């Protein structure tokens, strides 16, 4: 770990100003990912600007039925919140499927969106990696491929996004609120992440110094029966090979509303819009579930070592939709 300075500003605006003006500065919240990467010198900020005390740690009910979650809420607090468990169970399940109890106590909602990839070549400073060191190439594509992306990847980067929470947020149409050098703005979670086609070193559309302050969950009746299914290489404490966040409403045997997002398969939480379109208005049958999953995965570009993710994602989607139909 390289030596660094630490600041604890008194308000959000001075935190934003400090980080915006210093290319080698970084926000620090829970630190569960950042500090690890600093130990390995994958990230080497010269200044850490602590924001944990500056962002809200409350979950507020909004008029209209939505929830506003402060960016400083811990993963465990969010997972345990009664409103989340009743109205957005997919989110609680996704959070509890991630990390360990101890890590979830430290990790924040804001930081969770910004986790860096677990691609082993990104995490090894001796290896080429366009995401860590632009222009050096991608060592992963022809290397150990088990955890790599099958959707939306590019020649320059095939890394996956590790967050479970963000997959649920994507399915729930969550909106991220930020404060940046040019003021406040709101960003759909599904618009937060950049394509890895160019500049894979930048994971998100956030500007330098732009801080996530809250996340808003819109009211959603269908979310009350939502579910998260994480498939991984062991029963707990592993990142997803494939995960599915879903909610489904079936009336008179036909799909009237559906939310579907995938984790473990792309550089971002992958909202399965193609599959959703294929399902909506059609009979809730196993054959249609499978056809919808296959339509979503038609664009998949698999490598030898991660090709299994395509049938795995298909089966997990079908399995999930079947379960939701049976429960409905």
């Amino acid at each position, binding site marked *: 770990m390289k030596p660094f300075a630490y600041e604890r500003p008194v308000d959000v605006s001075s935190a934003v100003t400090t980080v915006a003006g210093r290319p080698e500065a970084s926000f620090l919240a829970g630190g569960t990912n950042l500090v690890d990467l600093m130990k390995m*010198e994958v990230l080497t900020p010269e200044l850490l600007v602590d924001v944990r005390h500056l962002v809200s740690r409350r979950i507020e009910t909004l008029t209209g039925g939505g929830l506003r979650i402060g960016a400083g809420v811990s993963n465990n607090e969010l997972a345990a919140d009664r409103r989340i468990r009743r109205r957005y169970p997919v989110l609680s399940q996704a959070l509890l499927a991630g990390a360990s109890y101890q890590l979830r106590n430290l990790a924040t909602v804001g930081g969770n969106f910004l986790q860096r990839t677990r691609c082993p070549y990104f995490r090894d400073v001796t290896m080429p990696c366009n995401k860590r060191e632009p222009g050096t190439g991608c060592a992963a594509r022809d*290397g150990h491929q088990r955890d790599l992306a099958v959707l939306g990847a590019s020649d320059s980067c095939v890394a996956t996004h590790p967050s479970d929470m963000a997959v649920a947020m994507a399915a729930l149409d969550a909106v991220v609120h930020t404060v940046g050098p040019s003021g406040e703005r709101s960003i759909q979670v599904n618009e937060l992440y950049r394509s890895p086609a160019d500049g894979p070193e930048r994971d998100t559309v956030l500007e330098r110094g732009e801080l996530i302050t809250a996340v808003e969950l819109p009211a959603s009746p269908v979310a009350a029966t939502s579910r998260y299914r994480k498939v991984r290489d062991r029963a707990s404490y592993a990142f997803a090979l494939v995960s599915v966040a879903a909610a489904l409403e079936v009336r008179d045997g036909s799909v009237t509303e559906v939310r579907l997002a995938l984790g473990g398969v792309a550089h971002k939480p992958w909202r399965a819009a193609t599959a959703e379109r294929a399902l909506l208005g059609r009979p809730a049958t196993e054959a249609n579930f499978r056809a919808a999953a296959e339509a979503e995965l038609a664009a998949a570009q698999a490598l030898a070592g991660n090709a299994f993710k395509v049938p795995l994602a298909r089966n997990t989607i079908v*399995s999930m939709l079947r379960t939701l139909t049976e429960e409905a």
Partner: protein
Amino acid sequence: MTSVNETNEPSRRAVLKAGVGGLGAAMLPSMAEPAHAAGPATAPSAVGGGAAGGIGAALKRVEGPLKVRGAATYAFEWPVENPAYLYPLLSTIASGRITAVDAGDALAEPGVIGVLTHMNAPRLAWAEEPEVAVLQSDKVAYHGQIVGAVIADSIETARYAAGLVKLEYATEPVDVDLRADRDDLRKPEHAQGFGQLPGDLMNGSPADTTVGDFAAGMASAVHRVDATYTTPVQHHNPMEPHAAVATWTDDEITLYCGSQGVSTPQELLTRAFGLQPGRLRLISPYVGGAFGSKDFSALWGTVALMGAQLVPGRPVKLAFTRQQMFTLVGHRPASIQRVQLGADAAGKLVAISHDAVQETAKAKQYAEQTVQASRSMYAAPGRRTSTRIALLDVPVPTIMRGPGEATGMFALEPAMDELAVKLGMDPIELRLRNEPETHPETGQPFSSRHLAKCFEEGARRFGWKHRDKKPRARRKDGWLIGTGVAAATYPSPRLPGSTASARLDKNGRYTVRIAAADIGTGTWTTLAQIAAEALGVPLDRVTLQIGDSAYPRASSGGFSSGMNSWGTTIYAAARALHTALDENGGSVPPEGLQVTVGMPDDPKLKQYEFGSYGAQFAEVRVHEDTGEVRVPRLLGVFDVGRVINPVTARSQLLGGMTWGLSMTLHEETAIDHRYGNFVNNDLGGYHFAANADVGSIEVHMLGERDSHINPMGSKGAGEIGIIGTAAAIANAAYDATGIRVRDLPLTLDKLLR
């Protein structure tokens, strides 16, 4: 008969003081040697309780309270004054030479004391052993080799400055590709005892064997199996990292160093540094897991001593990081194994062959006895085994829990299951039909072999007779359910080279010293129980002292040899002490009585085959949609001879089975064939079983005494728990799904449809 002057006793020693009286008193840290102890109270106290506490007593670990309280001193924790810290720098190429070193920036960093590289490191007096000879040349033999070290005032400074040392390399092509069709495979030689002895394989057995006519047997067979199984590189990952604290003074050189034995590394390092015998003292009372990775190699000791030499009188502390442990302390070598079985119509084997190809390092021919179990497990007139190794640009592999059989039985036992399917025969019945009366290769009798009873007892407890006859027949809630079984065996060797002293003081207390090690297995407790039994006195009159090279030399703990080797030696010392007492007319002189005795020769060792046995049962669930594998139930019945301590023995077997589950479902170190590095080199990437993966595990021991093996009647219990687990689970997964997975680990992609 020698008297001992207490003031000459080694300081900072770890002692086991028995008999503080009762369980309550045993919790108190009252037993340290206050006059000498530089560290915290670090000596475990025996559970007295007034019971005899000999062999068979179900005692909890005597050092348990110390460990729970954090008071048991592990290597890195020894309190020393003003230590310096050493952080190793690892190679980023797998093959080549270092052409330039620039340590300028590192040396300029405040707090940095020195930078060691091959340019300035002390020349070792003996550098032929690649696992000891660190920084002796510019040659890089594998990715992640130690190519330098920074010594600094703080651990953070040392680590940061290590990143400032600039190395340039001339790289050579990387070859880490294990394939059975390589044309440069070779027959191993001189791999016995980590290459110190002439036998072909690690355990001294020949690489290849042939008995009868395998080809003729196979030709005559009615049912045949010919299948290839593979196992990946696996890593030990003990909880305690490999750590050392070294202090180099003009008189004594002290090395606190977690180790599976103190004598062997003390001798290796004494030789490497060209020291006077006895000048180096190695102390290791507690070890936070080792599993083979802290046995032979004393690489971390070498580096710590080099650092200590640089700052005479100042202690130097070193602990490898988790990532560094992936290349510096050995691994289980990957294997490709072909098994051929031929049976007659009745299921009697007529031919067995087992051909293993394993990887090893170019630097050293480590070769384990992967095919060993196939030589002894089943009767068949025509049989052959072979072992070949590929020399690659990889770190030197080493022994790892159940070395040889753990991987070998993943080939033989699934093949037996495949044969049972072909025969339409119950897999237990097939095994019972092929029980040999004597060792199938040597013809020697088994000292004891209760495999059939293990199966019988296991089948009864598991409810085996209710099993469905055909695969993919049971499902519940989207999960396919299956059951499987496999046999287990592991030799019970007695390693040479142990000596023990036994002493009787005027006050009636006994002290037994032997430089044995407790690697978390319960040796502090079980050796004391053996000593009490051998001396014929209650446990609370015996003080055991282990884990210090100042004590009489002992073999290392490995290959399930500890109790057999050390216990036998202690028995001999006890007998000699009794003789000395008789010769003294039954009275103890004021200075006490003491004897020091080496492990006796035993002609029986050449007359019998010694080994432990077991039957492993598994229930497996495989998710129909995702291929996820769960193991809700494991059950093992083991023949480990007379049980010294049912609590610690059960713990060994339970741990072995848990690891067997982990090895089956999860464990694989991926290697990048372009760079030669281990890719998933941390505990996020190297998966082993989490609590949620482990269901019910039942452990049963037959407890039948072996009347030939040693005075205790005990056989090895350290390795046998992991043997056969992978086969039982894979066989159960076949029963659940109808899919035969022959390549470990049993990950979901291999069962996905």
